[in-house]
């Protein structure tokens, strides 16, 4: 059943109800941010209010941080080709979270990889990329470095050669904002789960034992999928994978997780890393950093103290930080956020 949600600007795609088999929760899904958004709530009657709130959050985030929209705030900044900019509170928060993620991960998740992605051909919405264009990719463009970006409240100073890409944190930030907004819209009653392209956050009271979710990889050539059911009672889980956004330039296979040090797609041993954390932005950044860290990922995750599930290219699964190794196990979330510690939290849009 499609649920029309009124908006004042461009109509958002309609939500489609998803029947998961449990009448105690209501689930809906729609396209968003170049991927899909899914919302699950209980009690089910809270769904309409939650969807309207999530629509507002997703629309605002897209207008702030999408580098594929000409009318977005970040595109406006990039057209300025360097200088001092007064940005909205919402974009300031998004950039602040990205910079804190970069600091926390030692630059593994760096928001200044925008030009590197453009050089590789990821210069438009992924769905619009020709997956097998004949011309080669551009020259590798190592990231200028997140330390070059200056953010003081709403004042952003950006050098002319820097293009920001907030992909390592933006979906997580969006999920964090969305669950907060949904809980506010529903009067803090019940519980809510929001997934943005597989990065999901929960808030409020969870179902008994936690929200049942799946960790799933992309299908292998035989069509089989490695999945693990787990339970999430609080916090967030995010997954980064090099297999889901791939394209080719000449004879070279490329993907969207770029090593800031080289400007090339990360080539570590992991095809997919899932990380749990107190917030989805933390989990999002940690998952991306783990892919980039390669062989050092497990060591970094141990230092960060985060539960994680890592899958090698051969399909071998490794667990870290107390991630449940049995199906249906509950993920224990360590408290505290690293990426919101200095960035301004609190529902900014």
């Amino acid at each position, binding site marked *: 059943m499609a649920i029309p949600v009124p908006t004042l600007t461009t109509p958002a795609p309609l939500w489609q109800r998803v029947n998961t088999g449990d009448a105690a929760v209501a689930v809906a899904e729609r396209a968003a941010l170049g991927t899909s958004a899914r919302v699950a709530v209980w009690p089910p009657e809270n769904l309409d209010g939650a969807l309207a709130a999530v629509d507002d959050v997703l629309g605002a985030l897209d207008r702030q941080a999408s580098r594929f929209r000409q009318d977005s705030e970040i595109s406006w900044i990039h057209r300025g080709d360097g200088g001092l900019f007064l940005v909205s509170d919402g974009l300031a928060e998004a950039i602040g979270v990205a910079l804190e993620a970069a600091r926390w991960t030692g630059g593994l998740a760096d928001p200044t990889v925008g030009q590197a992605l453009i050089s590789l051909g990821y210069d438009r919405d992924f769905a619009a990329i020709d997956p097998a264009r004949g011309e080669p990719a551009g020259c590798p463009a190592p990231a200028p470095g997140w330390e070059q970006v200056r953010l003081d409240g709403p004042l952003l100073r950006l050098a002319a050669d820097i293009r920001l890409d907030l992909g390592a944190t933006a979906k997580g930030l969006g999920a964090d904002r969305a669950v907060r907004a949904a809980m506010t819209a529903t009067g803090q009653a019940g519980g809510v789960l929001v997934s943005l*392209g597989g990065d999901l956050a929960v808030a409020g009271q969870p179902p008994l034992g936690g929200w*049942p979710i799946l960790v799933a990889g992309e299908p292998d050539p035989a069509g089989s999928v490695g999945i693990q059911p787990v339970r999430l009672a609080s916090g967030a889980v995010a997954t980064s994978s090099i297999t889901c956004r791939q394209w080719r330039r000449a004879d070279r296979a490329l993907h969207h997780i770029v090593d800031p040090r080289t400007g090339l797609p990360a080539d570590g041993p992991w095809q997919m890393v899932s990380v749990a954390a107190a917030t989805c932005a933390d989990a999002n950044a940690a998952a991306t950093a783990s892919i980039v860290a390669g062989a050092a990922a497990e060591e970094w995750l141990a230092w960060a103290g985060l539960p994680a599930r890592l899958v090698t290219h051969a399909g071998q699964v490794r667990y870290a930080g107390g991630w449940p190794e049995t199906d249906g196990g509950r993920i224990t979330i360590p408290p505290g956020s690293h990426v919101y510690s200095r960035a301004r939290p609190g529902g900014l849009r």
Partner: protein
Amino acid sequence: MDTDRNPPEEEMPPPRLAGSAPAAGWVRLPGPGDAAAESRRARRDGVRHVRRMSNWTAAALIAGTGAATVALAHHAFPVSAPAAGAAATTGVGGTAITNGAGGPQVSHPVATTSGSGVAVTTQTQTVNGKTVVTQVPRAASPGS
């Protein structure tokens, strides 16, 4: 519960001078000494009154606080043990245990964490009690 103390000795009225009894029918006007004594008496009575009131107020506050604590504790902690996993986020960067009636029983997966899900959408369904995951190619979608 009355813990009033007697006024200290120095607050007692001074003894009257001897031989100063008034004649019959004559009413002595209140002099400075009488006024001081009256003032001391009034102050002593007032202090006693205030002390008594303070004691009652303190008792009422203690009783009220105790009752409020019991009431809040009753609402905060259910008689039955909280459900496993009954935790809730309390905002950015924080988690807290929520002790309440507990959420509903939910058996089937409601979402999937995976890669960004552009190439395929993961659908889950239950067939004969077993969870089946299907990867469905997605059409191009607008957005960032």
